[in-house]
């Protein structure tokens, strides 16, 4: 019996028409070089499950928004359109709304930054500012120094501009000045041009640590000496659980630092409003680059945030967030102590994340499918390195799940680790696959 059917062109011949191959993408030969590195990996697929309610996701970096005064915010949004609709719905300034820029100064003053409204460029989330700065400074092959580990979303931007990302280690007090300088000595010795130091000084993503007050001026001094521009990314600075915020790097050096700020974590990410503060000449170029990228940031979003800042107790809201996240941090840390005695982790004084080092020989990326089967998700450490290292770490977020869910998630994770450990006992510590795709999760996880 042969039921092979060929209803294609020539019905008289049983031989199928010889086909030209297709790669299902007629433009495959047309992509820019920088596009070739973009891949989908198993990891990304596994994250699709993380959004299901059955799964405790310790992966996402999403703020917990249920505490927001949503009814009042709805009023605000309505008023913006009803009363200032012709402005809100219109194009606006490429640099951003003047009033909002003044209000941003007030926010930044909490971390010691004194600036002029003209120094501020409003962007579509600070992620866009990151993109613009990279676009302005990075030629393919230029070196960006980032902490080890570093924010996955920044690594994605640097990669897109074909930067060579090199890492300098951090410890519980943040980036280590001596190691930073050693990296510069080595790289400049190799004739490399290091253009940017990318640093998340407060409640680091993913490491959870904060750059100590004592180290801040030292890092700036070294950067100055080697002619390296510092890119200070500070979305979490106001979310400290104890005491007052530390002074921003920008507050110590106006000329050598580009500062990135954001409302995504201190208010909400939905309006996509962030900003950059840059030295005068850089700021001029940022505005031009931003105009060519997006013409202008959304007026509707800016006016909504501006009205929120003017009419709501935004400081009170930040205080609420701090208390909420502190309770969750406590739940995370106590659950880790209870369930993962053989692992080590950072105890963050603010922000969203703790950085867990797995017991010897375990690989967080290899273990992720097992975790998904056990209904718990995290981001493997490899996502936070440009060079594929970090397999022995994972980032756990405590921002979104409730304390009960966090405890349940860590309990599940303990079972996953026990299962993986059994494998390691059987097979020994096995080397990583060489062609492992280092992948970034989607935006709700970054």
């Amino acid at each position: 019996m042969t039921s092979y059917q060929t209803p294609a062109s020539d019905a008289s011949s049983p031989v199928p028409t010889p086909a030209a191959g297709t790669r299902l993408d007629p433009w495959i030969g047309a992509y820019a070089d920088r596009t070739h590195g973009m891949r989908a990996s198993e990891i990304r697929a596994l994250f699709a499950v993380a959004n299901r309610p059955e799964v405790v996701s310790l992966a996402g970096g999403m703020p917990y928004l249920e505490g927001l005064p949503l009814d009042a915010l709805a009023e605000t949004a309505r008023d913006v359109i009803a009363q200032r609709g012709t402005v809100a719905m219109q194009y606006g300034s490429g640099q951003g709304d003047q009033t909002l820029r003044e209000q941003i100064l007030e926010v930044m003053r909490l971390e010691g930054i004194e600036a002029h409204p003209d120094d501020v460029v409003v962007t579509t989330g600070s992620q866009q500012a990151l993109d613009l700065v990279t676009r302005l400074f990075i030629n393919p092959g230029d070196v960006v120094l980032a902490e080890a580990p570093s924010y996955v979303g920044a690594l994605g931007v640097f990669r897109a501009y074909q930067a060579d990302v090199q890492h300098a280690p951090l410890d519980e007090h943040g980036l280590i000045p001596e190691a930073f300088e050693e990296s510069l000595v080595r790289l400049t010795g190799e004739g490399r041009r290091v253009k940017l130091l990318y640093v998340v000084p407060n409640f680091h993503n993913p490491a959870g640590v904060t750059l100590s007050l004592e180290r801040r001026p030292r890092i700036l001094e070294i950067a100055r000496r080697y002619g390296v521009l510092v890119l200070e990314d500070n979305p979490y600075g106001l979310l400290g659980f104890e005491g007052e915020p530390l002074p921003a790097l920008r507050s110590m050096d106006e000329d050598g630092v580009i500062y990135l700020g954001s409302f995504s974590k201190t208010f909400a990410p939905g309006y996509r409003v962030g900003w950059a503060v840059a030295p005068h000449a850089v700021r001029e170029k940022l505005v031009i680059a931003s105009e060519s990228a997006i013409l202008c940031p959304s007026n509707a979003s800016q006016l909504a945030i501006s009205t929120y800042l003017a009419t709501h107790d935004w400081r009170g809201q930040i205080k609420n967030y701090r208390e909420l996240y502190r309770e969750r941090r406590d739940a995370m840390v106590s659950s880790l102590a209870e369930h993962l005695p053989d692992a080590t982790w950072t105890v963050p004084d603010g922000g969203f994340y703790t950085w867990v080092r797995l017991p010897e020989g375990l690989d967080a990326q290899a273990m992720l499918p097992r975790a998904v089967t056990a209904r718990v998700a995290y981001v493997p450490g490899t996502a936070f390195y440009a060079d594929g290292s970090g397999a022995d770490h994972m980032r756990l977020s405590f921002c979104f799940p409730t304390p009960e869910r966090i405890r349940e998630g860590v309990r599940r994770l303990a079972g996953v680790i026990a299962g993986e450990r059994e494998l390691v006992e059987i097979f020994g510590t096995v080397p990583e696959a060489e062609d492992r795709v280092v992948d970034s999760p989607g935006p709700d996880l970054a």
Partner: protein
Amino acid sequence: MSRPSVLVLAGGLSHERDVSLRSGRRVAEALRSAGLEVTVHDVDNDLLPALSQVKPSIVWPLLHGASGEDGSVRDILELVGQPYVGADPRASRVAWSKPIAKTVVGRAGIATPRFVTLPQSLFRELGASLVLESIAANLGLPLVVKPARGGSALGVTVVREASALPRAMVDAYAYGETAIIEQALTGTELAVSVVDLGDGPVALPAVEVVPREGPYDYDARYVPGRVEYFAPARLTADVAARVADVALGVHTSLGLRHLSRTDVILDDDGVPQFIDINTAPGMTETSLLPQAAQAAGYELGELYRAIVTGALRA
């Protein structure tokens, strides 16, 4: 007959959730374009209430992996008397397990690469290095290590050196307690889809898969560009017919219904070797069954509608 309504089941909690959602969207779109009334539903707490509320003529499970392919969702559909597209629970269970499917298909006289099935516990009992050495010595290299259950190449590694076996085992066990190690064949990779529109199973033209760089892994499967597809495959009529017969033999020997996709490697001696069977084959933009259907001259919406009406008639 009034216009049938279809409830497409997509999502689920398996590792292949993402692929399933994409398959579900594509099939729903195609069925709608063919004039059918379609709802898409995830497998969750609301599913059973939705079934009794929507009362679809038929359910099309486009669930890949776990409960979607192991027969358990189909058990429930049987229980509530809901007609559905695809294999019944028993056949699904057999097909879902690679070692069992290979054994059944092998008994039907179809060639399949030599393999061993390895529960994780076995290594603990016998010692990993001894077992792996013995496997490498007896099956020879290269080898393919796969989870015993699952699709989309998740957890699959091609091993060219014995030293890479432990890593491959660890990666496969991350997806389940049992793995298989199979001889890796060189040859032409083919996927042959079988559809039954109510008049018995028919093989669609084979699709030839030529990875341009690296393995045919998850990325290669779902992102256009890394793989070149030939549909129909570049085969002589004679070979194409033999390959089609293998797919039909697999479909029949496993007792499958309505549609399936058989992955075959045409080895260097021209023998079609059975590699894998999919009872809920992928239906995404880059998937193989839709490509085969188009190569056969089908408009997808029309084909999917014919599958639905065929399934309702049976």
